[in-house]
């Protein structure tokens, strides 16, 4: 199995605060890997550093054999690492269609982009119905679909997802996770950051538990779900 993403000793600081204290993990091509942990554990910080929006204090990130640690964010997107940020980062003053068009910002081939758009609409038919509306008028679930669809427009090789379940009703969470599994079956690798532990680990091949900026557990998703330490950490039983 080929390793697509390898993170080595990554550390990120905010001023005097060390939010991520040297984490090591990797992700195999074609798999879903989950990064779970409590609020403030450093999950989002890690993702932002992977996308180049935060500068790591040390360590490096290797994507498909290339060191991308110090690349600018848009260069990282060009290499195929695309993030759906926390809170969905939908552009509310643009229409749904414009949001999707911007997803393909890095791709010059218009024909191919049009084809991807059809694929995205096939995956999320609701987006097609609402293409002309302002994205700010969508419901929470629809915004999450738009965020994922927009990321797919870039034809990513690795999708970084930050808490796709946040603020969504349980049924909508189910739908989003089903979609993620489907996208993954089509060949896309996914790094999933979640606080919805059980859901995330259920669909993940591998999982890492992060606590106060450090990886404390690493195992297959299946094993982690049944690991009493994980249950203890999350339910306090």
């Amino acid at each position: 199995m080929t390793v697509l993403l390898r993170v080595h000793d990554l550390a990120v600081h905010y001023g005097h605060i060390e939010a991520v204290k040297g984490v090591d993990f990797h992700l195999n091509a074609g798999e879903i890997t989950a990064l779970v942990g409590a609020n403030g554990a450093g999950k989002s910080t890690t993702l932002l550093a992977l996308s180049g929006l935060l500068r790591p204090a040390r360590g490096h990130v290797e994507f498909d054999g290339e060191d991308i640690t110090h690349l600018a964010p848009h260069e990282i997107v060009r290499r195929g690492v695309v993030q759906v940020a926390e809170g969905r980062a939908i552009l509310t003053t643009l229409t749904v269609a414009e949001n999707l068009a911007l997803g393909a910002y890095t791709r010059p081939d218009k024909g191919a982009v049009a084809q991807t758009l059809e694929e995205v609409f096939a995956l999320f038919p609701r987006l097609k119905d609402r293409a002309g509306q302002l994205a700010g008028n969508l419901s929470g679930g629809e915004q999450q679909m738009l965020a994922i669809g927009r990321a797919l427009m870039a034809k990513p090789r690795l999708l970084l997802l930050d808490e796709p379940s946040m603020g969504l009703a349980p049924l909508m969470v189910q739908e989003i996770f089903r979609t993620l599994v489907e996208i993954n079956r089509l060949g896309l690798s996914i790094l999933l950051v979640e606080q919805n532990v059980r859901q995330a680990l259920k669909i993940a091949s591998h999982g890492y538990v992060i606590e106060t900026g450090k990886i404390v557990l690493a195992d297959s998703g299946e094993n982690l779900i049944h690991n009493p330490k994980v249950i203890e950490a999350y339910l306090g039983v």
Partner: protein
Amino acid sequence: MLEQQLLNALTLGSVYALFALGFTLVFGVLAVINLSHGAVFMAGSYAALFLVTRFELPLWAALPGAALFSGLLGLLVDVLILKPLRARNAPHLIPMIATIGVGIILTSAAQGLFGAEIRRFPEEILPAGEFTVGEVHVRALEIAIVAIAFALMGLLLWVLRGSQTGRALRAIAESPKAAWLLGINVERLFHVTSFVAAALGGVAGVLIGLDFNAITPQMGQPILHKGIAVIILGGMGDIRGALIGGLFLGTAEVLAKGYLSSQMGDAIAFGLLFLILLLRPSGLFGRVLERKA
């Protein structure tokens, strides 16, 4: 006579709008009030004068030359001053203060190089034609000014509406972070925006210089204040608002000068502006765009 006044209002208003457009574009995209925009306007006007008198370029060639020159000034300000401040995450008032400094430097440089006295374009190079429609006296120059201003504004609006770059700029205006994650090179578009905005400001400077045929180092100051009035009227960062606000202010000013005293016109304009800020800080037409991190 009202028709004549309205023609003057259209000429003045279209230049105000052109000036304010660049001003509001920078605020929308870079979230900076660029108080050197007035000085860049003045610099554009001197650049055209210099090209016409020193190199004897025709006006149609001097205009793009002046646009290029002021655009480069804007780019320089962005690269040398605004970029380091962005990197440091300076509070948003800090870049504004720095651009005040730029304005002072440019104004004083112009005064040193060209003197404080009024300079004029040679009469013979100005478009000479004029004709009368009904009772309205129309100069070819005025038509050219209005045409150029509207053409440039139309072009900008079209780019912002329909092109991928335009969408990217609107994405940055809402959230630079989201824009980065879409693969947009936000820094480069900051530079492009600074260049384009300053170039538009420079062209506006040339047009005003031609309209009144008077250029002074201080000419940037009043237009800067009017630009501020316009973008507050139209809503800060709102492109269409700047267009309408510019025409509105031009009309108000011409009519006030025509029917009241010439100075009180300004007092009314700014008093109005002051009231709008208190009652509707988002502008007459706009809404407040709260920018996300």
